């Protein structure tokens, strides 16, 4: 049965031309056959079929929601009532959530089927999905390579046809970077657009939830469902959510900026050429394109790693073995219980970040690191504010390289951190960004282009990205 996007598929499901249960079963079979990719931490087989039956009868009674029958995978940092919430960490390996995240509840309310929880870097900390208690996730394009991170499992689940769409989280590029590495669309919304309630906090002022999809239509569909002010999240914003489906293919010729700092040293030549190629085509089509400058760019990575580790060190304090989660067997007093539970329960990268964050908040160092970084963050945001007075959208590479080999960077955290060099600024500034798969390199690896817009301008991202959607 042919369909070009999820809405069409849902239409076929509703009209009975696609069997809802067969659809779920097909996904379950593919998941089984692609088990080697290790995209899922948990697959809810029986439950998904049960749910498919319920939704089928809802469809018959004419009361089904916007996502009726859509098969959705969610990153294992999102709370889903009565289901495991591990964050791919040993420390939460036995934890079952007692409530659902707002974003998860919203897709359930629209009658989506949650088929499983996807693998990711531990507590969403990583760029390659190599920091998971459940093991590496493999890139379906080339299984000797990483899928990117931290939402590696969610990206792979979409890229390898293990679900219709998926939810990931993006704190510094964790949606856009794996989308680029796997050759699919991924959108990081404006900070405050989607409720964070139920998203296990890594860096609270950076964390966002967004969709992965094979086409822009599906991205728009899911983003519309999960957006909106939530009373349970004080940082969510009461901002009108436009109908993103209606802006698809509207052919608007937005004014585009090319920030020169994002095309400097360190960028893979093939990626650079692919993007410049597109820029030339856009020019030919009559787009107004100008070079712009974001002078604070060189401070992005340093600022980002000071602030996110600071917040993480505090956010992860609750995992202490006292009330829930993993507790070491080996202790004779409270302090030992804390130390041993956390030493045994957290992986290396998480511990590194907790220590960095604890350091930058310590008395005597706070002003030099945390307070200074907060000031620089404001300057970075001002850079973007200025640029978005001149242009509607910014085009940049999503990543400096295409998907790298498993193990290639795992011994060099600094090099790993640099793979976020083009994505972290959007989280520092709180603006939305999208990855558009634009080409494949000479090795057949996907190349991604990032497009950024000002706060709450997702509409422009969706409209512009739909030009590149070949489905």
């Amino acid at each position, binding site marked *: 049965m042919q369909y070009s996007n999820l809405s069409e598929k849902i239409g076929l499901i509703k009209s009975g031309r696609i069997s809802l249960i067969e659809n779920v079963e097909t996904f379950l079979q593919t998941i089984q056959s692609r088990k080697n990719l290790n995209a899922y931490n948990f697959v809810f087989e029986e439950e998904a079929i049960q749910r498919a039956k319920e939704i089928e009868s809802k469809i018959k009674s004419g009361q089904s929601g916007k996502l009726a029958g859509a098969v959705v995978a969610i990153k294992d940092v999102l709370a889903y009532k009565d289901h495991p919430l591990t964050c791919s960490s040993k420390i939460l390996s036995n934890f079952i*959530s007692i409530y659902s995240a707002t974003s998860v509840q919203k897709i359930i309310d629209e009658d989506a089927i949650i088929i499983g929880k996807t693998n990711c870097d531990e507590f969403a900390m990583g760029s390659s999905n190599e920091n998971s208690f459940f093991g590496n996730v493999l890139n379906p394009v080339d299984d000797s390579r990483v899928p990117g991170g931290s939402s590696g499992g969610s990206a792979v689940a979409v890229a390898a046809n293990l679900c219709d769409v998926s939810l990931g989280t993006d704190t510094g590029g964790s949606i856009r970077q794996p989308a680029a590495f796997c050759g699919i669309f991924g959108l990081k919304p404006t900070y405050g657009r989607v409720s964070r309630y139920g998203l296990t906090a890594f860096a*609270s002022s950076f964390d966002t939830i967004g969709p992965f999809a094979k086409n822009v239509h599906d991205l728009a569909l899911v983003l519309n469902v999960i957006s909106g002010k939530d009373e349970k999240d004080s940082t969510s914003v009461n901002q009108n959510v436009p109908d993103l489906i209606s802006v698809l293919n509207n052919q608007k010729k937005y004014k585009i900026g090319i920030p020169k700092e994002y095309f400097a040293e360190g960028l893979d030549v093939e990626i650079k050429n692919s993007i410049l190629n597109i820029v030339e085509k856009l020019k030919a089509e009559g787009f107004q394109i100008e070079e712009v400058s974001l002078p604070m760019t060189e401070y992005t990575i340093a600022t980002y790693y000071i602030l996110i580790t600071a917040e993480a060190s*505090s956010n992860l*304090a609750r995992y202490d073995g006292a*009330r829930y989660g993993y507790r070491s067997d080996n202790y004779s007093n409270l302090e030992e219980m804390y130390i041993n539970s956390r030493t045994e329960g957290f992986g290396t990268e998480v511990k590194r970040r907790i220590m960095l964050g604890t350091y930058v*908040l310590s008395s005597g160092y706070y002003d030099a690191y945390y307070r200074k970084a907060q000031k620089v963050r404001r300057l970075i945001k001002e850079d973007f504010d200025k640029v978005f007075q001149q242009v509607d959208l910014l085009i940049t590479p999503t990543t400096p390289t295409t998907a790298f080999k498993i193990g290639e960077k795992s011994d060099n955290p600094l090099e790993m951190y640099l793979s976020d060099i083009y994505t972290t600024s959007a989280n520092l500034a709180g603006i939305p960004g999208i990855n558009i798969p634009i080409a494949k390199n000479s090795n057949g690896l996907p190349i991604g282009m990032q497009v950024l817009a000002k706060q709450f301008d997702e509409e422009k991202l969706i409209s512009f990205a739909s030009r590149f959607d070949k489905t």
Partner: protein
Amino acid sequence: MSKFNQKYEPVIGLEVHAQLLTETKLFCGCSTKFGNKPNTNVCPVCLGHPGVLPVLNKRAVEFAVMMGIATNCNINRHSIFARKNYFYPDLPKGYQISQYEEPLCENGFLKITTKDGVQKNIRIKRIHLEEDAGKSIHDKSDTTLIDVNRCGVPLIEIVTEPDISSPEEAYLYLTKIKQIVQYLEICDGNMEEGSLRCDANISVRLKGDNNLGVKTEIKNMNSFRNVEKALEYEISRQIDALEDGEEIIQQTLLWNADLEHAYPMRTKEEEHDYRYFPDPDLIPLFINDEWYNKINHSIPELPDARSNRFIESYSLPKYDAEILTQEKDIAEYYEMVAKNSRDYKSASNWIMVDVMSVLNSKNISIKEFTIQPENLSKLINLISDGVISSKIAKEVFQIMLESNQDPEIIVKEKNLIQISDEKTILEIVKKVIEKNPDQLNEYLSGKEKVVGFFVGQIMKLTQGKANPQMVNKILIEELNNKKNKI
């Protein structure tokens, strides 16, 4: 005390935590009700489960602002919440949400009056909002049990400048704080139950020295008297140490009320580094004019203002006014009694003496007191109208306590109306004199003391109902008549 009055002076600052009487917790919808089964007033938010977020309770903000206004503070229209990070099993998130830089209220003061009548301002440095931690219960075996019910209950922390110079002043300051939170109805002010808690910073210095000495902090003083005792203890300890040429070590001490001794808990080096930073889960708290005005209007008349009004409107002595306004409910009871009675001072006396002694002996509050204010007014009016004597009134009061009846009915039913008819009294006087010739002779021979005997006999005969002033007057006249006849 005298020892340090001569050479040293103590410098004391207090940190008071007051538990706010909101229905729900500071950052979630759980009940704040005290005494529920352990770990029943809980939800994912106050349990610190992964992914939860705090949502600020507006009512708690209003209570904190009320306290700020009542203590003459500047209310910061823009304030921020911060995380105070430390590990403890009864702190589920591993941090307490509090305020650090930019608290809600700053730079206030509170007026206290010492025993010698000297007025003094105690400056208040800041008042901020924060959440309470849970409770750790260490049982007899080696285990520790945790009750999270209290976790997230709103507190205000009220911090003074080091303006307090004696344990007595500390006591007066605390009494004032308690009085204000009770007037505002934002905290029940019960230190024994922990809804009001106090920590003290103490140092001593030579009189006239402008520099502060090394301070210690005392925690765990769970009553007003304990605060005074602990402060006295620590001041003496520091002076003794200095006199012996020792240095004071900056440290935190825990007061043991049973042993009346403070034990070291940790030294400065062992202090936590709380790594305060703004809580990214909460947006800055902004109080606009409309909200501020609404809160300001909701502040009731405060104790000092009420005391002054009592002096003016009811012509009460300052002493009476202060005692009656100490507790809001008693002040309100007084006003209800005074409103319907014709003798304000008498109403004051009845409440300060008779009513309060009942409250004390039964250990009840005025709200549980059985005599309705309008009935007490009637009793007072019966006296001032001469219907019953003060002595009879005490009896009626006792009957009222038990039966909760209208005093006018009691007086009628029990036939307690005062005999004020001159003829009747004269007849009784004559009768008593006649019956007691020996005592009469004593009187005639100059022993005027026997007047008391005659009065007693008359009262006995009339069951206390005879108007005592009239009895005195008529008796003396009669006795003098007899004297003159000789």
